[in-house]
């Protein structure tokens, strides 16, 4: 059926170009969609389902060795909700996410406006630099940053010494707060290029006539920014802000690698590393699944608006 549907034999009469739907093609879309569906169900759907089920079970070390998991209903969720450690981690993740996303968008907007205000050469230099930072693989970026903040002979402490801070031999990864600040700086450094270039692309869509008219009417630079430019690029800003919120909530690699490089794991966990530690570290798959479900729900809640706006574009 597939082959006849997608490729009728050459002897078949030439189809009429005006015919809206050919009966033979009725099942074609189903066959075309099938591979994606099978793949997504196998690699993502099944794990999500397993996770939902497991989040209602006691699934610890004993189950790893073959004991059947015990059905515990909402017990995992109950112990999560009453676990102060989880709320500390949820709170830390949300604060980290908000700080990173808001600073990323603020800096990105600033750089986009800067690109719009400078000479062609200046803009090109800035764009190339941003693209370089954006293109770096996350793990390679992390090796460079751990080298820069390395306490023995990293560049950061040397620079701080030069400007008069007594930072020699100071390990920034040992204290939770400075650890998270380092992580936030790295995350913002990685994310700004996408935001800046997207907002700049939005700026270039503005018609010069509108800006010129505003200027003739006597609107100065600030007024034009406040009343004309920002409202017109607001849709782009809100979408990149949303994407940043989603991405910064799930930040894992940066935190994990900084922990590897000598950070204190227990006091620096965000949701992602906490789930990892619960699952592969402590072997408590029931609790890990419950936290994962919580994280999925948080993400879907934040993504909903973005997905809806993309669907609108589609129809």
């Amino acid at each position, binding site marked *: 059926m597939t082959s006849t549907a997608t490729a009728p034999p050459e002897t078949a009469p030439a189809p009429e170009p005006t015919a809206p739907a050919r009966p033979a093609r009725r099942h074609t879309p189903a066959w075309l969609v099938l591979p994606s569906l099978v793949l997504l169900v196998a690699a993502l759907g099944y794990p999500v389902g397993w996770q939902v089920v497991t989040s209602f079970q006691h699934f610890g070390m004993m189950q790893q060795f073959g004991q059947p998991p015990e059905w515990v209903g909402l017990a995992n969720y109950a112990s999560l909700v009453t676990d102060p450690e989880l709320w500390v981690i949820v709170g830390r993740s949300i604060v980290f996410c908000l700080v990173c996303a808001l600073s990323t968008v603020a800096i990105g907007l600033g750089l986009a406006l800067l690109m719009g205000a400078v000479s062609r050469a*200046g803009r090109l230099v800035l764009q190339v630099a941003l693209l370089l*930072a954006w293109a770096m693989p996350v793990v390679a970026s992390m090796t*460079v940053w751990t080298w820069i903040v390395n306490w023995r002979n990293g560049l950061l402490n040397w620079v701080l010494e030069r400007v008069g801070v007594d930072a020699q031999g100071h390990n920034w990864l040992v204290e939770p707060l400075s650890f998270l600040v380092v992580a936030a700086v790295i995350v913002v450094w990685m994310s700004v290029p996408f935001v800046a270039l997207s907002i700049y692309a939005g700026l270039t869509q503005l018609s010069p006539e509108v800006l010129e008219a505003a200027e003739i009417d006597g609107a100065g630079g600030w007024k*034009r920014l406040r009343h004309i430019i920002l409202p017109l690029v607001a849709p782009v800003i809100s979408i990149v802000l949303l994407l940043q919120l989603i991405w910064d909530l799930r930040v894992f690699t940066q935190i994990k690698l900084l922990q590897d490089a000598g950070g204190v794991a227990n006091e620096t966990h965000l949701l992602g590393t906490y789930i990892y530690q619960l699952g592969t570290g402590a072997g408590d798959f029931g609790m890990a699944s419950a936290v994962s479900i919580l994280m999925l729900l948080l993400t879907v809640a934040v993504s909903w608006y973005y997905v809806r706006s993309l669907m609108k574009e589609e129809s």
Partner: protein
Amino acid sequence: MSRILGPASSRHSTRGSTRRSVLTVVAVLVALVWAFPVYWMVNSAFLDKVTLQSSTPTFLPFGGSFDNFATVFGDAGFIRALGISLAVTLVTVAAAIVIAFLGALAISRFRFRGRRSFILALLLIQMLPAEGLFIAQYKMMSSVGMLNNVLGLALLYTAAVVPFTVWMLRGFVAGVPVELEEAAMVDGLSRTKAFLRITFPLLAPGLVASGVYAFLQAWNEFTVALVVMTEEQSRTLPLWLRGFVQASATRETDWGQVMAASTVVAVPVIIFFLVVQGRMSNGLVGGAVKG
């Protein structure tokens, strides 16, 4: 379009041009700050251990050598990780292109029942964090005996990139008018031939862009690999690089070698990325501003 914030007319040209020069200097300084870590990686890659351990940083790679790169390419662990990364990436790229192409064809050329739900599912799935799923994926892979398996990892990667590649290809397929194909069929070509000779070449840029996107994801991915590639023998390149970071916590690290290794991993990515960058950001924020 270069002067969005600058004066739109030439009335204030002198004041405007001074302002612009100042801002250009600011832009160049920001550019230097942003590109610095990338420069620092390449610079350190050329320097030897003694130079890097001195109390004063060396900002230019004068007197440097390719020794660190030679060491990286002579490392059996690197060669093995390179092989595994290449295999996983190739399988992912090939599978993602084929599967996503079929899916894109379905949603852009056909109106069928469930089409809207399919698109909605794609977009939602694309948002699912790997970090919220990896425990379950680990259990699934271990129960079918596919931990440390190249195909298993490629399967997870393909599923992760297919939603976005379908979405990206949809635009390309929709951009080729059906009339072109039909005109060719009127001229006597079969549907298949019309598709292969007319539509397919026009889609080539889209297929390349999706392939590069899949390449970047599979080549750079860390989280899922960390969970399902548990043995040292089956490390991908990012996991192999992570080994250096871990080692730096406890002992003196040869940063020159680490930076050379990072450079080797990053260079193909940077090249490919520059090829496809515009497509990817358009796909994500596409349609937000209607010009």
